[in-house]
């Protein structure tokens, strides 16, 4: 499974690098502008970190939707991979890109700190809140795909369960906006993301058609 996941990550890596390149450009531009035009007042750290995180998330969304039929066929015929392992690849792809976006945010904050001379560790919960929300929404992609597939394959109970979890997840994520800067808010968001991953993986394993 890890080899397949690695191959999928490598395939989408140029997209991620392109996105991070744009994010770095925006970070430098924004930091420089604020530094030189507003007397040393730099943008808050959370604004800087959002760009690479968004880049990771955009690639996560692309990876979920780009030629998914082809990926299923490729992975299923490419070796001794079981549907459970394939489900693992499918739900781990967004997590991996999200994590890479978060990792890339660290040097960019360093870069912005160098330019603006300002560092705000107190904004970390806000950054975590944004990253968590993006991650949870990215995990809803595979859940929606698998719920639709279950409906097409006339697995009514599975489809209803999938869509119920999807709607529940949206409600919880909306409600968690009010707890954005607290640890409870983060926990709720993390629970939604993990639940979406689990249900999407379970639905994937029970597919009766891996071609569509």
């Amino acid at each position: 499974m890890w080899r397949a996941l690695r191959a999928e990550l490598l395939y989408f890596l140029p997209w991620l690098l392109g996105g991070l390149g744009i994010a770095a450009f925006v970070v430098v531009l924004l930091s420089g502008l604020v530094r030189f035009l507003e007397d040393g007042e730099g943008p808050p750290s959370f604004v800087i970190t959002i760009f690479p995180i968004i880049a990771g998330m955009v690639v996560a969304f692309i990876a979920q939707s780009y030629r998914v039929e082809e990926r299923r066929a490729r992975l299923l015929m490419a070796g001794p991979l079981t549907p459970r392992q394939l489900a693992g690849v499918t739900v781990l792809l967004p997590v991996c890109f999200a994590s890479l976006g978060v990792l890339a945010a660290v040097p960019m904050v360093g870069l912005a700190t160098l330019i603006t001379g300002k560092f705000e560790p107190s904004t970390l919960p806000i950054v975590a809140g944004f990253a968590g929300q993006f991650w949870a929404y990215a995990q809803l992609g595979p859940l929606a795909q698998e719920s639709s597939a279950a409906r097409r394959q006339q697995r009514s109970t599975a489809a209803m369960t999938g869509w119920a979890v999807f709607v529940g997840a949206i409600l919880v994520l909306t409600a968690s906006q009010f707890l954005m800067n607290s640890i409870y808010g983060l926990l709720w968001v993390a629970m939604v993301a993990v639940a979406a991953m689990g249900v999407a993986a379970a639905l994937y394993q029970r597919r009766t058609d891996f071609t569509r």
Partner: protein
Amino acid sequence: MNDQKRETTPAAHLSGLTKQFPGFKLGPLDLVLEPGTVVALVGPNGAGKTTTLNCMAGLMVPDEGGTEVYGAQVHSSRTEYRRDVGYVGEEGGFFQRWTVSRNLAFLAELLPGWSRDRAQQLSERIALPMDKPVGKLSRGNKTKLALVAAMAHRPRLLLLDEPTSGLDPVVRAEVLDLLWEIIEDGEHAVLYSTHVLSDINRLADELVFLRDGQIVLRTGRDELSERWRRVSFRLSDDDLKLAGIVEHRRVRAEHQVITRDSEETLRQLTELGAEAVEVSRMSVDEIAVQILKEGHHVARTEG
């Protein structure tokens, strides 16, 4: 499983395979494919050919029944059978922006039994552009790549879903030549789906005709071309009751019939005193059209 047992075990055994979609039901299909045989699965679009092959490859889970490949049950959560299966389907399943060689390297990493030598040999044989991204390959080259990818791990069963569909005559001939070379060692069992019977006619040992999700006929290739004939004759009797007739036309005083049992038809015509009897051979495609058109008149197994 030891080699001796593998030889006696069918390459593929479909038993009661059933798959239902809204408005379409495949099967129940029962079919045995012996090792070393080439079977053409012939049918019009929507007959259930792709569904059959997808179920055999483990890409679809049948509603009932199942498939065994060399004795191993085809099941999406068990992977033993995949070693023996090479599949060329509608979805190539390649990384479009990666080159041919990088795609083959990816498969080499994952597929047990993959032979880099064989992959290279086959690629050179058909002049695959190894450094070109798959997304920029012509349709013919994509088909060739799919064949290399399906065969480099030396599977014993090849499932080919209309591999020459949409190819120009030159590339089609190249692909068929390659297939011919691959299967002439007699070690591969092949199930080749097509709606153009002339493509597979020289390769196939047997023909299985599928219509509306059901097998309407399974027959040997030679038996088919030996028995089906177009016969014209003169006979005053309008109400003809001849054995094996699948189509009958009357043009003025002449009767024109298509028979699936020419020997019996000619014997009866002699008895009836038919005059000006002329017999002509039919192409396999003409026969296929008749079978698929008149499938309900044809026995399930002929010969």
